[in-house]
C-alpha cells in the first residue's frame, strides 16, 4: 500500500496505563496501515486493547511509544492545538450517544458542522436535515433527545459524526442500539462514503453481520494484533 493512500499508519505502537508497579501495558508493537476509503472492523475480547487503539488513533490520548501518522501528520509529540485541529477532520461515534440534552436533533448534528468554523446557517441547516434524512430521521429534526428512542438518539449521534464529511470515522459499537435494518443502513452509508468521498472507517463491533460487510478485519488479543484479514481480495 502506498504511503499516500494510508489514512492511518501505526508503527511499533506501545501503550501503558498506570505508573510504577501498577503499570500495565495495554498495546504491544502494533503495526498497522489503513487504506483511505476502507471500512475496517476491529474485533477482540473485552480488554484486548480495541478502545485504547481507537483513542490513540483519534488523537484522544498521547502517544507514549512508537508512531502514529494520521492523515499525514505524526501524532507523537503533536501539540494539543495540532491534535484539536486534526480531530476536526475526524468523526467520532461513541457507544453512548452523548447527545446534548438541550439541543434538538438538528442542532446536535449542527455541532458537527459548527466545529469547522462559520458556515452559512441556511446551508448548514440543510446539510444537517439531509444527513438526518439519510438516517431516517427527517421527521425528528426538532425533537430533543429526551423525546427520541435509544436507536434514534444513536442515529443522531451518527449524523453528528458524518455531517462534516470527516476524512476518518472512528466508531465504537455504533450499531449496538440499532435494529439490523437500521444498522445495515448505517454500514452501507459508511461504505458509500468510503467509495465516494474516501472516508476511512474504523469500527469496533461484535456484530457478525457487520463483519461480513467489512473490507478488512483486525483482531486484537491482549494488546497484540493477532489477525489481519483483508476481505476485498
Amino acid at each position: 500500500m502506498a504511503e499516500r493512500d494510508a489514512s492511518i499508519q501505526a508503527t511499533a505502537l506501545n501503550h501503558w496505563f498506570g505508573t510504577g508497579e501498577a503499570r500495565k501495558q495495554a498495546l504491544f508493537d502494533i503495526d498497522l496501515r489503513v487504506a483511505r476509503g476502507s471500512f475496517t472492523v476491529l474485533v477482540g475480547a473485552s480488554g484486548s486493547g480495541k478502545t485504547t487503539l481507537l483513542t490513540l488513533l483519534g488523537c484522544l490520548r498521547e502517544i507514549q511509544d512508537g508512531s502514529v501518522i494520521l492523515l499525514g501528520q505524526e501524532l507523537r509529540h503533536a501539540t494539543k492545538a495540532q491534535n484539536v485541529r486534526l480531530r476536526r477532520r475526524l468523526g467520532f461515534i461513541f457507544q453512548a450517544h452523548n447527545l446534548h440534552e438541550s439541543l434538538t436533533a438538528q442542532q446536535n448534528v449542527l455541532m458537527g458542522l459548527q466545529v469547522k468554523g462559520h458556515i452559512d446557517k441556511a446551508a448548514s441547516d440543510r446539510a444537517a436535515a439531509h444527513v438526518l434524512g439519510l438516517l431516517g430521521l427527517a421527521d425528528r429534526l426538532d425533537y430533543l433527545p429526551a423525546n427520541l428512542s435509544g436507536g434514534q438518539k444513536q442515529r443522531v449521534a451518527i449524523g453528528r459524526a458524518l455531517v462534516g464529511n470527516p476524512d476518518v470515522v472512528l466508531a465504537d459499537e455504533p450499531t449496538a442500539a440499532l435494529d439490523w435494518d437500521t444498522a445495515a443502513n448505517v454500514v452501507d452509508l459508511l461504505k458509500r462514503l468510503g467509495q465516494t468521498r474516501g472516508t476511512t472507517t474504523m469500527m469496533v463491533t461484535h456484530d457478525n453481520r457487520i463483519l461480513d460487510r467489512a473490507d478488512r478485519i483486525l483482531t486484537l488479543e491482549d494488546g497484540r494484533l493477532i489477525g489481519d484479514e483483508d476481505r476485498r481480495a
Partner: protein
Amino acid sequence: MSRLLERLLGRLPIGWLQLIHQRGRFAAALSGVAFANVLVFVQLGLMNSMGTSTLRPYEFFQADIVISAADANTLVEGGNVARQWMLQALADPDVVGGMGLLVANVPWDRGETDISLTTFGIDPFRPQFLAPEITADIDVLQVQGAAIIDRMARGLPQEEAAAIRRQTPMAFETQGGTLTAYATFAGGGGFGGDGYLLVSDQTFLSLFPARSSGAPDHILLRLRSGADPNAVAARLRELIADPTLRIRSYADAMAQELRFQQTQRPTGVIFGFGVLIGVLVGIVIVYQVLSADVADHMREYATFKAMGYGQGFFLGVVVEEAVILGVFGFVPGVIAGWGILTLMAMVTTLPLYISFGMALTVFVGTVFFSALSGMIATRKLAAADPADLF
C-alpha cells in the same frame, strides 16, 4: 431570543439553550443574582445617601477655603478655631472676605419624638457666604431668636413646615430659650442628625452661652474671582503654620469628609462591606449555578472536545450563560432594589434612591462578576477527558 443570540454569537446559543432547558434551575439562579443585586443596591443606596447627606450642609454655604481645627474631620465635629486666624488670612491679597461658622446640635422636644437639629450660627450681614436659597431670607436672622428651619427635617410634618412664613412663624422651645422660625430651606435628615437650623451668631451664642464669637468652629473664606483655592490654601498654611489647624480648599474639605465618613466611620465601613458581601454572594451564586451546570454536561462537553472544540468555545458557552444570568438577574434586582430603597426613604427621610450611574455601575459589575464566575467555573472542564467516552 435563541435566533437573536445565534446571530450575535455566530453559533448555536448553547448556553442559553442549556439554561432554558432547566427552567427551575434557571429561575433559582436568576433569583439568586437578583438577590445579590438587591443587596448591592441597598448598600450602595445607603452609602450614596451617606455621601449625599454628608455633603448636604456644605451646600448651604459658599466658600473657597475653610480653616478648621486639626481634629475637625467633619463639618459638625472638632475643636474651635481662634477668629484671629481669619484676620490673618485676610492679609492675603486673594482673600476678599471671611466668616466664622458656629456649629452645635440643638435638641427639639416635639412631644412623642425628640429631634436633633444641626444648628449653624452665621453672620446675617454676610449673605455672600450663603447659598442663594438661604440668602433670600437671611435678613430675618437679624432679629434675635429668629431661625430658618429645615423644612425636610425628620420629625417635622410637611404641612407644618409648609405653613412657616414670615407672617405665620413657628416658635419652639429649645436650650431653655425660644426660637422662632420665619422661613425654611431644604436640608434633610442625615445619619448624624434629623435636620438643620440656621440662626445668627448672636442667637447661637444666646443658646450656647459657653461659646464665644472669638472661637468659631470653622472659618470660611471667599477669594477674589479667579484665584486658585489650593494655591491660596498652601500660602495660608505657610503664613499661619499652626499644626492645630487644617487649612483646606472648600472642595478638599468636602472630599476629605466624604472619605472620612466612608472609610473611617463604622457606618461607612459597614455599608462598604455590605456592597462587598453582595458582590461575593452574587459571585458564589453564579459560580455554583454554572459549576453545577458544567458538571451536569461533562459528557457532552467531553464529546465536543473529542470533536475538536477548543477551550475558547467552552469558555464562550459558560460566559454566555453567566452574562445571561447577569443581565436577566439584574432586571428584577434593580426593580426590587428600587422598591426597597423607596420604602426606606419614606420611613427614614434619607435621600435613598437608585441613580442612573449607580444602576449602570451595578449592571456592568453584575455582568463582569458573572462572567468572572463563569471563567472560574470553566476550570472544571479540564476534567472532561474525551478519551473516557470510548
